[in-house]
């Protein structure tokens, strides 16, 4: 029961539409020989411009749709048991069933958003006629490209991270459960360490107090803490264990295993934070820049009216 990914949505419907659009645009561009050379002001240039602007509108609507999940709520007759023979009209039932099967899901929107966004690279570039300069028009183009490229990373992350995340959690259901387990190991280690020398206790205490999961942007994204006290504790315990008496070894092994297990779990927690950060951070670029791009685009459109 493998589900279709957003790229495969409805048998690559939006890939087909976007490809068709892109190929026809390229062909048209190649065959068209405007008198003044290719530029945004030729009739084909205008066509590309209008098409691109429409696509931008559709792309923006995705952002709206995502945040307003229940944009369409049609009240059906709420049927309760006190009046079970009350019947939903067939027409409405069919309509509801049609909507369920054909109505756009957010996945459909995202599939269209992806392919149309990528098609925009070609369409908008053809619209420029490869004429760039230091002006608001090129600024709009540049912003658009940054937005699209960040979006491409987003698609990569959406397709890649989920599997890694599931594998990383290894059967633990929630992130909080993972943290609780780490906390529990910490407590066990503290109790165990009391029977050993002060330096062992200090190493364990330091690992408990100073180990960080998450933190600033960089730490979240790289999943590492420089000189991680837990990792260090495991290393140091390895050395410290050598100087112990034979009768302490069994107990020490227990402590070592707890710390080693904790290290694995800490690593898992950090990776989980990392995957989530990687799934999200690009949006902090993608969304604000798209607003900047829209502003530049409006400036661009307003500006061209002055050429007339």
């Amino acid at each position, binding site marked *: *029961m*493998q*589900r*279709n*990914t*957003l790229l495969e*949505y409805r048998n690559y419907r939006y890939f087909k539409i976007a490809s068709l659009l892109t190929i026809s645009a390229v062909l048209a561009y190649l065959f068209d020989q405007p008198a003044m050379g290719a530029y945004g002001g030729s009739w084909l240039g205008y066509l590309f411009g209008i098409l691109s602007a429409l696509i931008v509108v559709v792309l923006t609507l995705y*952002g*709206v749709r*995502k*945040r*307003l*999940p*229940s944009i*369409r*709520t*049609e*009240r*059906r007759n*709420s*049927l*309760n*048991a006190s009046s*079970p*023979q009350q*019947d*939903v009209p067939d027409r*409405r039932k069919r*309509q*509801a069933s049609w*909507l*369920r099967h054909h*109505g756009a*899901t*957010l*996945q459909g*929107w*995202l599939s269209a958003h992806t392919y149309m966004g990528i098609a925009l690279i070609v369409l908008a570039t053809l619209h420029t006629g490869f004429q760039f300069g230091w002006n608001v028009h090129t600024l709009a183009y540049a912003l658009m490209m940054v937005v699209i490229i960040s979006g491409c990373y987003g698609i990569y*992350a*959406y397709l890649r*991270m*989920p*599997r890694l*995340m*599931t594998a990383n*959690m290894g*059967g633990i*259901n*929630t*992130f909080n459960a993972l943290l609780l387990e780490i906390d529990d190991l910490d407590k066990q280690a503290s109790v165990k360490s009391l029977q050993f020398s002060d330096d062992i206790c200090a190493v364990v205490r330091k690992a408990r107090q100073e180990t960080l999961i998450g933190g600033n942007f960089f730490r979240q994204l790289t999943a590492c803490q420089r000189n991680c006290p837990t990792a260090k504790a495991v290393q140091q315990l390895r050395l410290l264990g050598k100087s112990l008496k034979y009768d302490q070894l069994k107990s020490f092994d227990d402590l070592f295993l707890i710390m080693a297990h904790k290290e694995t779990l800490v690593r898992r927690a950090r990776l989980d934070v990392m995957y*989530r950060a990687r*799934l999200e951070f690009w949006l902090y670029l993608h969304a604000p820049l798209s607003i900047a791009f829209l502003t530049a685009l409006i400036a661009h459109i307003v500006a061209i009216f002055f050429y007339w």
Partner: protein
Amino acid sequence: MTEKFKIAIIGAGPAGLSAAAHAAELGISHILLEAAQQPANTIHKYQKGKLVMAEPAVLPLRSPMAFAAGTRENILTLWHEDIQRHKVNLRLGAQVDGIKGERGHFQVTLSSGQSINAEFVVLAIGLQGNIHKLGIPGGDLPTVQYHLDDPEEFKDETIVVVGGGDAGVENALALAQQNRVILINREEEFSRCKEGNFNLLQAAIKAGRIEPRVSSRIDYIDSETGNGFLLRVVAKTSEGVEIIPCHHVIARLGASPPRKLLESFGVKFPNSDITSVPELSEQYESNVPGLYIIGTLGGCPLIKQALNHGYEVVEYILGNPVEPADEPLLKQKISCFDASCSVREGLTFIRHNAPILAGLTALQLRELLLESNILTPKPDDLIFKYDDYTSSFFSILEGELAVVVKAKDGSEIYFQIKAGNFFGEMGLISGRRRSATIKAITDCVLIETPRRSMLKLINSVESVRQKLDEVSMKRVVRNCLTNTLPESELNYLLQGATIRRYKAGDVLFHQGDKADGLYLIRRGSVIISQITAGKEDVLSYVITGNYFGEMALISDKPRSKTARAASATEVVLLKAPVVIASLERNTDLRDLLAARYRENAHDTKMIEPQDKPGNLFTFLIRQGVGEATDVLLIDYSLCIRCNNCETACANTHQGIPLFNREAGPTHSHIHLPTSCRHCEHPYCMLDCPPNVIHRSVNGEVFIADGCISCGNCKNNCPYDAIQMVAVNPKFKKPGLWQALTGGAYQSEKNSIAGDDSPKKAIKCDLCKDNAMGPACVRSCPTGAAIRISPEALSLTMRDSSAVLE
């Protein structure tokens, strides 16, 4: 000293208070005897601030005692005022030991040695007066309690809770929030409590919040002063004698009709069942003339009914033929089909024309009718449609109806059913969609009984169950095998047939067993699996309305597969020799079974090499998906953990997400979030006092208005899918601007009202009012979330080659 009254009323609960107040109102000499030190003792013992509901809403109140839904405190204040106002002759602390005599000459003796003479006695003692107590030394110490008012009064104490029933387990769970709790159960398992409580208890035991002692009983309790503890409990556990120092003992050992006491008064019971209530006349008079029984003990557990009983019983004693409070309501129902006949005649007519209801007592029939609708469809009117998700039960009083069944090959087959019959029992038993369309042929009169009332009846009246099973077996054979079997063949097939019931996980037959017959499923679902090379592979998933077990019958070999119930399952088992003999004569049936046999043989080959989907399916079944009709699954290889599903859910449901995406188990890449599965036989519906949990025609299980925040549904749900939340009625769906600026997330906080507003049970309703389907699925950006039924899931898993690894 002997006093004399016209009416002695025993028990100052709602029923007794109402009777006494009415007697006082009429100036009749009366006495109200109450063993406790306060009237309405049981309601005093309710948890603080508990909301008391005035159900059933349709029933008018006729009592001098005021009553409307409100908090425990409000109601008690009102009643105390009423007692003063009507000058009720109330005697507290008066425990009744015996009643002798008959109409006109009763002698009531009290434990104080006093005796009272009365012409009539009204017993309104309910069940709570007969709470079982610890009959051991120390069982009456002040810190040994038999009820729990407010669990929050206890903090950081060690408390021993005794009793493995619902009350004990619920108390233990509530106390465990702030205390160390030791739960003592006489039995080896906590099998007496509701499944919801059982699951919560298991979780609490696992988490170490409750320390259970099973197969244990307390020997004696000492008051101990050392170590800061108040008590010392000496208990015999399975591991020997244990001494438990503690602060409190709370024993919840149950309550039952005080049968011995009643029998000593001469009252007879209809059967030996410990929970059965005495047989009464329509005027609440017991077999002892002049001794009346009302309230819970009279079979009506609701407060409003009890108050009405109190009023009516005094009128009956005075010889006034009052109509029962429900008379006008029943009259209205009966006038649907005959405006001229009285209620009594109407009831006789129903008894005569609906044999399935003939075995009911007068009170049961009245109650049933009150909860039912009378339908009078005209020719060609539709009663219900094939595939609708309704579950009420219909008895035909008059007229003829057509049953339109879809045969397995898609053609339509017609039957006729006439007055005296019933229909709709298949949906009732299976909890599934309707298997036929029913239309009226002539003018008809039908009684439509809701699912819950019918289930109650099936469980309490043996004759109803027998009649239902008898007819249902025939219909199951037709439905599962073929609709074209002649009646004679049907009767032959059913010789020696039995109905068997299984719990989820029970094995129906093992691989290698001798074939005992043909199995027809009338409720639940079954997994067929095969062990090859020591590994169990799931081969198929068979649901209600189908048969299995034919392979071994046809091939005359031992069972080649194992059948296991995937959820609570009921089958009709046709005996092997009968089936074989019938197959020899009946070529149609033989061809049908042979075709299935070949199909299955083919299936087996197709699925055998793929062991992995079987594993995933077994996992899901183990998680209870077998009893679901619609389960939310998330493909974790696509899910980007954005929680947009939860946000969308919150935005469509007063700002509160009705499921938890992250919680719940994961197997390979399939995650089963904690969310409602819209079970075939919803646990939440089992015990909803105001009866507001319903299933819509499309199958969604939802909670309608009128929740009394009792929390039963939440406790009964084994899947943790119901929350009790004080919903903010002012919640507004975030607008476009709010949504775009991130305000939608903040609005979630506004959705929970302050502490003082009442909590309500909320759960997933599959966005039933939204034509486009559930918001969670629609708003998943990567298409990871799906809602699917187990049978659709099993088909997808069998057909798709791209199965998850």
